[in-house]
């Protein structure tokens, strides 16, 4: 136990000192191996790392990242947003709902919250300000509504969770859809209150012909969610196959139909996706080795024994889980959080009889919350760079949404049916 604590302290020191996360995971992995399993050959490390990422399921990540970059740089994101605006823009504060719907729509094709902030922020922020939303609220809304992209399928967060725990990706995606909609509705309630308070107006109601024309203009863009979600749930594609088909479709639509990308831009966009992919996979590779040693050292079993001894039930355990994830989310990136906490906590959750999909939703909502939680939520910095606004202003705008997020987190945590209803219906 003392050795485990010492390794935990080592990881914390490395983290605080500013070591790259792959070393924050890798050096403790080496320390556990040296401390507990010195007789094992060192060669087990590259073996576990390579085997861990040599999975067809994980190929969905580079493909979805590339598709997201293509759509963000091209026209698909804008045209999906136009459709939402044509439908709800006339309501009081309609552009606020457009932001939420646009984030959910782009989330349904990109799976990445930072990509959603970057793609939609520039388009919608000036519009939110124009119709009268306060600056801080507009910033908070853009950052917070992008969280839905982490939940609405395809979600890279859910793919990583499914990979760590062996949970069905289709079931996680179905649950993520429901939970993402709940989070979107919660943001919409806050937007409605703010719109009334600030006297925000709506766009003139679009005529039926205008709505029809917007739908026609966005026809190819609307094909993307149909291809991904329809493909997966009709049984036509696995999530990885849907991911690669989304790349082919995005290249075709952006380069041939919309003519918004050329070959040079394609190479540039591919390079951006490749670098994101390398960062994620290096963590996954080293995280695999770490979780192998965590399991071998029976750390989850020790944790279960300790919680049993303390007579901790599911309610208290989930509260501990939420607090641990919220604190970690303030400082650490989403994939590292999962790699550090899920291998230790998931076996305990299963021991307590929790549903793996429900636990996945709790993890995902916590991670979404971490993306916008000060001081270091990643989306805060993406929005700051995209919108050229100081992080402090964005943080000030995010607070009301954090309260809403916490309410949603508590609902998802203690009402399992909210997570399991759609998977039960669809699968």
């Amino acid at each position, binding site marked *: 136990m003392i050795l485990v604590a010492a390794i935990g302290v080592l990881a914390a020191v490395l983290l605080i000192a500013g070591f790259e996360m792959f070393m924050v995971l890798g050096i403790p992995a080496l320390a556990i191996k040296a401390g507990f399993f010195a007789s094992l050959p*060192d060669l087990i490390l*590259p*073996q576990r790392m390579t085997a861990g990422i*040599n999975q067809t399921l994980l190929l969905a990540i580079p493909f979805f990242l590339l598709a997201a970059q293509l759509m963000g740089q091209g026209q698909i994101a804008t045209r999906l947003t136009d459709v939402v605006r044509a439908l709800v823009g006339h309501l009081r504060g309609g552009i606020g709902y457009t932001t939420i719907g646009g984030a959910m729509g782009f989330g349904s094709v990109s799976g990445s919250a930072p990509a959603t902030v970057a793609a939609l922020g520039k388009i919608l922020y000036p519009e939110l300000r124009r119709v009268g939303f306060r600056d801080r609220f507009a910033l908070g809304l853009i950052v917070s509504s992008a969280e839905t992209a982490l939940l609405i399928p395809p979600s890279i967060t859910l793919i990583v969770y499914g990979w760590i725990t062996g949970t069905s990706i289709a079931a996680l995606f179905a649950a993520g859809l429901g939970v993402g909609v709940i989070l979107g509705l919660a943001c919409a309630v806050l937007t409605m209150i703010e719109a009334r308070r600030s006297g925000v107006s709506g766009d003139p109601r679009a005529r039926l012909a205008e709505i029809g024309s917007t739908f026609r203009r966005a026809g190819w863009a609307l094909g993307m969610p149909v291809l991904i979600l329809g493909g997966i749930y009709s049984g*036509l594609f696995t999530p990885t196959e849907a991911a690669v*088909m989304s790349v082919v479709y995005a290249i075709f639509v952006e380069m041939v139909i919309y003519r918004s990308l050329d070959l040079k831009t394609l190479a540039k966009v591919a390079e951006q996706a490749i670098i994101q992919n390398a960062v994620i996979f*290096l963590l996954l590779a080293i995280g695999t080795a770490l979780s192998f040693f965590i399991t071998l050292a029976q750390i989850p079993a020790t944790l279960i024994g300790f919680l049993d001894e303390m007579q901790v039930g599911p309610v208290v355990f989930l509260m501990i889980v939420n607090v641990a994830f919220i604190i970690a989310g303030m*400082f650490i990136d989403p994939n590292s959080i999962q790699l550090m906490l899920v291998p230790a906590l998931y076996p305990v959750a299963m021991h307590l009889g929790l549903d793996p999909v429900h636990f996945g939703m709790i993890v995902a909502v916590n991670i979404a919350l971490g993306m916008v939680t000060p001081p270091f939520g990643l989306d805060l910095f993406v929005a700051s760079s995209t919108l050229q606004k100081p992080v402090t202003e964005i943080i000030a705008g995010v607070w009301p949404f954090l309260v809403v997020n916490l309410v949603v987190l508590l609902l998802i945590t203690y009402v399992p049916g909210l997570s399991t209803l759609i998977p039960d219906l669809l699968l």
Partner: protein
Amino acid sequence: MQRLLSGVRLVERISVVALLLTMTVLFAFNVLIRQFGGPLAASFGWIDEVVRSLNIFLVFLASGLALESGKQVAVDTWRNRIARRSGLPLRRILDAAGIIFCLYMAWISGRMAAFVFGTGQVSATLGISTGWLYVAPCAGFGLLALRYVASFVGAIERFDRNGETGE
């Protein structure tokens, strides 16, 4: 050093973009042939393994580029404050630790590759040695170590790309 880095960077960028586009074409072809190719699909069972292997090379060959461009994730908020208060040359310590860690990982990956090549173990669908898989982390950690060395000797500035101030 700069010429070496420029050359390495150019090769990495061309290789990784070519790898990702090849992966896309192959995997998409595999999906289409499975949907529409009937019995022909069975002849292309090797594509899945090739694409997985290419992804491993993609990840490791791009890791150095990611570090150099300041994209490798790190919690860098307290770094400068700790360096100022403690008087430690923290950036140099981080670079030195990076060099040692990455060289060690490259070394054991190289040993693993040599070991598997020696066993004669071959992939079921491709018929080539599975030792090639471990060449990827060996090369990748080598490229990461090169960037840490370049940062250590001041040939690249990887910290300020994160918007940090000097130590």
